């Protein structure tokens, strides 16, 4: 019951934040220099043509009215019409979220597993060569510009070694994968399409590796620090002194205790990844959310920018909420 109240209170706090994001985005895109209409009309358009097009997208109305229309639309799930494509933003966005979420979620999952395994191993070998190597390696990964790493991986993995498919598309089109969620791996699993699943995995390998290398360091450090605390704690030494089996110790004390801090950090890393995949997407021709939002921004496609910012912000706050709740459940010390 208490946890439910906690969740409710936190959900209420989200409302002003999301409203703030909506207002800020709405104003920000409109103060940017650049005309969204000229790019769809071409240079020969007269002022009258441009005015007609503006009216078509409601851009001739007063700002407050545009804002009310936009917010009103949001309540009915209507994100507006893209100026560049003339199509509803909602359906375009639905196509773009899957690929990016697939990339980020898988990368984060791999990074978490790596961080937990390596972090605990590192803590148990603290102060030794292996420990230092792991940590410095993670730090180096954390210092590489991801777009540069991606380019190098494409060159080596695709061009030189030929182990990975061309950086084009996310699944081999010949596998005839049918689209459900937009996340190819998931779709392949859902439709039991074996070849597509394998192909999607192959396409995912390099971009996921790029992201993992870049984000694993902070997670690793957190796990290792927690593990060290546990290893030094009286309860753990007592249990070890009583001859508890190593594996039981590991599961009972180490893993649980080290995981307490992780959710909040993972949420932060998730937020960072989703905001910066645009670079990885570009390098791997990954037509996801970031590319879509970037193009929207470059062409001042107001509804597209508004929708993409709102959705990223929504993901971000919800993930943080989940992290907080998980933390509250795992850590009895948290007052809720």
């Amino acid at each position: 019951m208490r946890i439910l109240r906690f969740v409710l209170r936190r959900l209420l706090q989200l409302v002003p934040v999301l409203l703030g994001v909506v207002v800020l985005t709405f104003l920000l895109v409109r103060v940017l220099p650049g005309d969204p209409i000229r790019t769809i009309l071409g240079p020969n358009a007269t002022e009258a043509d441009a005015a007609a097009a503006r009216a078509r997208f409601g851009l001739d109305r007063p700002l407050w009215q545009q804002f009310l229309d936009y917010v009103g639309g949001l309540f009915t799930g209507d994100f507006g019409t893209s100026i560049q494509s003339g199509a509803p933003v909602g359906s375009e966005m639905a196509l773009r979220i899957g690929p990016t979420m697939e990339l980020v979620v898988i990368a984060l999952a791999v990074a978490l597993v790596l961080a937990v395994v390596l972090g605990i191993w590192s803590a148990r070998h603290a102060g030794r060569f292996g420990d230092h190597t792991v940590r410095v390696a993670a730090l180096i990964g954390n210092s590489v510009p991801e777009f540069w790493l991606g380019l190098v991986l494409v060159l080596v993995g695709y061009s030189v070694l030929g182990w990975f498919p061309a950086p084009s598309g996310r699944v081999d089109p010949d596998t005839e994968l049918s689209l459900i969620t937009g996340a190819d791996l998931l779709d392949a699993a859902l439709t039991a399409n074996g070849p597509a699943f394998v192909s999607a995995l192959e396409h995912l390998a390099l971009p996921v590796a790029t992201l993992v290398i870049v984000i694993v360091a902070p997670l690793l450090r957190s796990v290792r620090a927690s593990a060290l605390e546990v290893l030094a704690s009286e309860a753990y030494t007592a249990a070890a002194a009583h001859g508890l089996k190593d594996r039981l110790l590991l599961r009972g004390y180490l893993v649980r205790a080290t995981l307490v801090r992780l959710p909040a950090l993972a949420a932060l890393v998730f937020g960072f990844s989703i905001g910066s995949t645009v670079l990885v997407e570009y390098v791997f021709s990954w037509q996801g959310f970031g590319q879509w939002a970037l193009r929207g921004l470059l062409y001042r496609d107001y509804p597209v920018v508004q929708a993409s910012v709102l959705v990223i912000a929504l993901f971000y706050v919800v993930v943080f909420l989940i992290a907080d709740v998980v933390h509250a459940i795992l850590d009895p010390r948290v007052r809720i």
Partner: protein
Amino acid sequence: MPGFSRPNGPGSPALSRRSVLQLGSGVALLLATGCAAGTTGGGGSTAPAASTAPGGAPAASKLRIAVSSYLSSWDQDFVGFDLTALMLYKNVFPYMIDYGVTSVGAGQILDTEAIAPTFAESFEPDADNKVWTLKLRKGVKFASGNEMTAKDVKWSKDRAFAAKANVAGVYRLIGLTKADQVEVVDDYTVTFTQAFPSALTRQIQAISLYVFDSEEAKKHATDADPWAKEWFAKNPPTGGYFNVEKAVQGQEIVLTANAGYPGTDGAKSSEIRLSVVPAASNQRLQLQNGDIDVALGIGQRDIKDLKSTKGVKVISAPSNNQLVIQMSVTTAPFDDPAVRKALAHAVPYEQIIANVYGGDARAAKSVVPLDMPGYSETGYPYAYDVAKAKETLAAAGKTSITSELVFQTDSEEQQQIAVLVQSEARKAGIELKLTPLDPATLGERRAKKNIPLQITLGQLWVNDVEYMLGTSFTKGASLNYSNYVNPEIEKIFEESHTVVDPAERAKLWLRVQEILAEDVPWVVICQPNFNLPVREEVAGWVQPMDGLARLRYLSSSS
């Protein structure tokens, strides 16, 4: 378009000349888009001879093409206006008439002078050149199975007028302003009643006469959306040379040859797969590895390497693409002709040709493009000479100048040129701030005509100086980013409409070039050659004079 909207006197004797001119605005609009999309389309290519067997039966060959970006929209009437979209439209919409093909040297190019019916049976005027009759073939079908009839043409034209966009704009030039000027006679006959006769009807209709499947469209129309905008934004049209088999937004488009094409020059490839690969380096890798057959997004820097790459060939030809810096003659400091002249002496022409194009460009010494009748270098004094540039500035009482050089943010080529120009101009005392602009900002600033210096790269579709003046050097012309107006040029331009004799015209053009050399609204840098890297097995490339590839001619023997 004030430059083009002079009333057309009926029965004008100089119809042919006028047509050349007025094709201008319709074409110029596409030309400028080509610039905005930062492509390196070119004209006058000599592609290797292709075995274009007559007959419409599609061969079994499949092609894979990489493009840099996905098309913005499938709706050609209301929103679509990027180069990828315009190119795809040419291949998936049924156009009633289109350019022919002619051989030049060993290669083939689109012939803008020979416009012939493709999906239509015929398109002919009455004796007065005022009422044009479009006759449709019987039995031509859209993918839905609906037959293409006169009502589809009528609906499509009504839609175009309602959109008040491209088509409605160019139709003004041939006296078509209202939907009721397009009338259905019977199931297979439509008439277009123009307000005045015009010899450029064929040219304008060649880029405008595409037809929707209206029966299908009406199913998706609503009271709020009578033209099914929402449906067509997402759903490709059908019935063209190719049908869109599959389109994954942002990523891939699969085209299959339309077996029902009624003419003789149907698609040579049964399937064409276009994948979106934004990074040029990735396109290059895929081309080298044989994972794609044609790379439409590879920049100049890779061309030299690819020429010697095994399995890859570069289709290459001199082109009418003109690289210039337009100076705003109404914005300080370039409102002073001395400053313009100084800049024209400070641009490192040879170095740009050598470094940016690897020598693969032609030096040009006139605002009139090379290969255009009337091109003359006489009276063109500008060559790279920093001392002269300084002298010119000093003579005008100026020692240092600061300004801004604008170019497209996504064009590596232009960025490279900007850096070279900045470096040399500095030596002459002209300090330039480099300003890369995204498409939306560039479009806005161009509409306001307040860019002091900008790099442009583009081609003129009609090889004629009168046309060039009409698009670029007369008051209000759409590509006249310089804001250049000269009374004598305006006069010559008017006069040239009725001058038919080539020698007479040449004389006019000499004078034009003298004036423009003196006024220097543009610094003409060079004409880079056209280059398209493809796999060795690819055949049949027809050089599009409008920069929009007709994929139906392409095939691959692998």
